[in-house]
């Protein structure tokens, strides 16, 4: 395949940045999208240029590092996958592909397609945990039976990989699906109840502070989430937040 790539190039956070066109050829259909990017970078290096910087690590859809906005969608046109799981057979010979970083005020660009998602870190630090020390003598794991249905739902929420596709796809750059998933995981488990009030209040306060937009329930996040985290998580977040404020 021969392709035209329109890629966002930005040399550092202070640079203004612009879209630059590249041509690549001999792209195999069985290549992953990031392998196509490797081919491009090899080509740029051989021509004496600076390769395109992009985040990636596990290349199997679980670490959440890769973060490209491809042809107007986070992680590209296919559903239920991350950028690294996208394969070139989803494109045709002669296609033009637009590649941009995930865009949000709370995700400033570091370089080219790399963004700084430390806002997610700070939200997690605000309450995304259960306060239990490592002692080796917490109660036996089976002393807290948990309804299988609740455990399965908590697992579904916990599969979030923190990639930020929800923010990138949202027209408001809202982080509610991300926050909703974490709050839900603990809200669905008995272990999470003790700190429920403070957790949701602190996490939402931090989310607001980071400059994410508000949710208008467009549902784009749910569609683009590589792990299929559902909007129910946002509804649960809203309920938990309301409950927490009523309680005090």
């Amino acid at each position: 395949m021969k392709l035209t790539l329109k890629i966002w190039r930005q040399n550092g956070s202070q640079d203004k940045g612009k879209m630059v066109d590249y041509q690549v050829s001999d792209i195999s259909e069985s290549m992953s999208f990031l392998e196509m990017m490797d081919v491009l970078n090899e080509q740029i290096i051989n021509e004496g240029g600076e390769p395109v910087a992009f985040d990636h690590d596990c290349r199997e859809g679980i670490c959440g590092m890769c973060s490209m906005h491809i042809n107007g969608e986070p992680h590209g046109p296919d559903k239920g996958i991350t950028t690294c799981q996208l394969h070139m057979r989803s494109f045709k010979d002669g296609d033009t592909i637009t590649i941009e970083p995930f865009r949000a005020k709370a995700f400033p660009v570091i370089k080219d397609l790399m963004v700084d998602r430390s806002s997610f870190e700070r939200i997690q630090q605000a309450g995304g945990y259960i306060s239990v020390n490592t002692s080796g003598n917490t109660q036996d794991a089976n002393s807290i039976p948990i309804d299988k249905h609740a455990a399965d739902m908590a697992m579904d929420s916990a599969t979030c990989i923190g990639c930020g596709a929800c923010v990138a796809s949202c027209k408001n750059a809202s982080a509610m699906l991300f926050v909703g998933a974490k709050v839900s995981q603990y809200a669905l488990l008995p272990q999470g109840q003790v700190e429920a009030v403070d957790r949701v209040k602190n996490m939402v306060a931090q989310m607001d502070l980071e400059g994410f937009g508000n949710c208008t329930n467009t549902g784009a996040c749910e569609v683009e989430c590589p792990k299929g985290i559902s909007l129910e998580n946002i509804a649960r977040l809203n309920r938990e937040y309301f409950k927490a404020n009523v309680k005090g």
Partner: protein
Amino acid sequence: MSGFFNSSIGRKYAMALSAFFLMIFIVQHFAINILSVFSPDAFNEISHFMGTNPLVQFGLQPILLFGVIFHFVMGFILEIRNRNARVVKYAQYNGDANSTWMSRNMIWSGGFILVFLVIHFIDFWFPEINTKFIQGDMSGLLADGEGYRYYEELTHKFAPIWRVALYCVGFIFLALHLLHGFSSAFQSVGANNKYTRGLKGFGKAYAIIIPLGFIFIALFHHFNQ
């Protein structure tokens, strides 16, 4: 709770609660208007009651006005904030791939509804207020004293085709707004459960039937002059 309404989620609740109120109001408004198709007399009676009852006029009417203004102002504030959450825009943004046009354009459907509301107020509400509270005519009667004026005024307004067309467009925007807004309001207050599918279906029906009904009323009176 004071912090609640300053938070992003608190504002969602506020938008949803005002939306619920407005959606109930629209049903009531529609119920009265549709009477005009079946029984001019009944329409006149209820219009007079609503127009002169102190509880409605001095209790519900200010709340409604507040609800309308709140919903609009908050909607615009949130839109501005949401736009600020993405400073550099995408060169390519394929919203159709993951969301409906309606959900992404609430500000536009809402904005057109606001324009329509202004016209609607000029057409009906200001003349009413003028007649009742400035000129002090609380009788609700026609100038010649022969019966109530409400039905007469209504049909008169829908005589010119441009106004009918304008109202139709206004209701189409209302339909578009409600197609997303109805279920969205429920999601905002945290109602997402096994009933959600049914509720979404009901919401779609509501969003289409009510505006269509209003359009029908306008057309009915236009063609029955």
